[in-house]
């Protein structure tokens, strides 16, 4: 019987590495637009400023349109980046990402209605940050690593927000403004726009 040489071993390791990278690449959604996230961050900061001016942290008249505008900006910028980098727009990876993010966001919508109806609006900022973080962290399974860190950071901010509701507005500004800006700039620098 012949025994594999050290060269065989190195080649086998390199081949397994190639298989792993190819499988990851086939299942990952990489066309996350950094500029899109930066824009969403600015929108978040403007919303926080408007809420602060109006004296109501979780003013739904401000934050609901903000959420809608942010989703539109993120969708348009991601599609634009996918086209520019020649990546499939509606791949299996993005389909799965949407499916795992959607339940957390839907739960956030229902909880928003329930808490607002019962007058517990002081819990909204923490809940929004935590559920958005839960959705993003789960969706990041199929995307680049920076998105996972963003999701985990949102979760932490949400936990703080639920324990300290009086910090709601600064936490919303830090999350929907600051975190989107920081991670967006990171993606612009490291993943080309």
């Amino acid at each position, binding site marked *: 019987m012949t025994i594999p040489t050290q060269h065989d*071993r190195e080649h086998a390791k390199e081949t*397994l590495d190639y*298989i792993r990278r*190819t*499988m990851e*690449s*086939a*299942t990952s959604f990489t066309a996350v637009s950094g500029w899109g996230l930066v824009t969403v961050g600015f929108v978040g900061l403007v919303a926080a400023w408007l809420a602060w001016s109006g004296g109501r942290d979780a003013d739904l008249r401000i934050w609901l349109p903000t959420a809608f505008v942010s989703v539109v900006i993120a969708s348009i910028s991601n599609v634009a980046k996918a086209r520019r980098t020649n990546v499939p727009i509606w791949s299996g990876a993005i389909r799965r990402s949407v499916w795992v993010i959607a339940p957390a966001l839907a739960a956030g919508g229902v909880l928003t209605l329930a808490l607002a109806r019962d007058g517990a609006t002081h819990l909204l900022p923490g809940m929004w940050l935590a559920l958005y973080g839960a959705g993003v962290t789960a969706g990041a399974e199929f995307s680049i690593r920076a998105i996972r860190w963003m999701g985990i950071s949102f979760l932490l901010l949400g936990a703080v927000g639920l324990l300290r509701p009086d910090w709601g507005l600064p936490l919303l500004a830090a999350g929907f403004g600051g975190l989107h800006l920081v991670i967006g700039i990171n993606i612009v620098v490291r993943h080309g726009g």
Partner: protein
Amino acid sequence: MAGSNVAESLDRLIHERIRLGIVSALAAEDGMSFADLKQVLQTTDGNLSVHARKLEDAGYIRVTKGFEDRRPRTQYRLTAKGRRAFEEYVNQMETIISEARDALERS
């Protein structure tokens, strides 16, 4: 790879890089379009077509042609035979690594 029994019995059909890439991608993502595969493997249309045809002829992948938004769309899937061949190939790679390590430890 000439030094090992395992290496000598490798499936030459998926040993080739692009074909191994096609099979690996389809093992992870069931059902990929020509454009998806081309992007993942970073290869040319001609290269991908030639190697995909060889895998199709061997019964490792199944190709379906259809239309999406009135544009032709070719969809690739791994067959049960293709999946078995892929798993066997990965096992063989792992065997080579462990045999070489054992030999190194004995020497």
